[in-house]
């Protein structure tokens, strides 16, 4: 068994960044969802998921990310991703996630655009 997914959250002006480390499977996806919904309750409507520490995902984990995207659409919030491996990014495009969640190459690019959009 692998160790569970590790999460770290940073709260900034109008934006929260969730950093992942490890495999995003069903359990990892649920942990991300719990963190994301907690941040929504705190009033963060713009979330950035930094996947620099994640090299492997599976479709069960991604299906939970789709649930988070659906929730963000409902509350007129925004979920974005950065630092995806080429394979994870390609997978998100295959599934069509990129139509509903922005994908940025790195955190700097994401924060610049998201904070500009939030202000």
């Amino acid at each position: 068994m692998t160790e569970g997914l590790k999460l770290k959250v940073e709260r900034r002006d109008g934006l929260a960044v969730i950093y992942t480390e490890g495999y995003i499977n069903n359990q990892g996806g649920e942990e991300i969802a719990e963190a994301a919904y907690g941040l929504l309750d705190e009033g963060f409507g713009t979330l950035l998921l930094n996947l620099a520490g994640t090299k492997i995902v599976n479709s069960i984990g991604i299906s939970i990310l789709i649930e988070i995207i659906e929730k963000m659409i409902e509350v007129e919030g925004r979920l974005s991703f950065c630092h995806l491996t080429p394979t994870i990014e390609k997978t998100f495009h295959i599934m069509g996630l990129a139509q509903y969640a922005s994908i940025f190459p790195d955190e700097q690019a994401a924060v610049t655009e998201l904070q500009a959009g939030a202000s």
Partner: protein
Amino acid sequence: MSELGVLEETHLTFRLAPEMELEVRACACEMAKSIRMSTDKVEEVGMAVVEACINAIEHSRAADGQLHLGLAVLGSAGADEPQGLRITIQDQGVGFDCSKLVPPRIEDNLKSIRKRGWGLKIIEGLMDEVNVLSGEGGTSVVMLKVL
């Protein structure tokens, strides 16, 4: 790639269990690296293998609880240079009717309670050729990645 011959072949058996997909992935990626497949393609092979394994774990209901992995390095007859990797993920479960599979769409998925069913679409998007054979004897997913 059907005209290519098999240069090297390996068969391994795994017990169907949560996270066994990572073991199977590691074996397939190791073989892909050994024939000098590019890093991005190795990762795509890994992701496709994970998805095929998850389908078997979730849906096969295989009485023997086993998953069989076949790895075949393909190349031109008479030449030693590999040109591709064929990966077969096989179970002896209950099978399913491939004709009843409906490809998922994100627009529908977002509105639906069920957000699953992406495995085969991901596999087809990442690999160069995919064939799924399923029936009463189980399911075989045969995937090809060209170097």
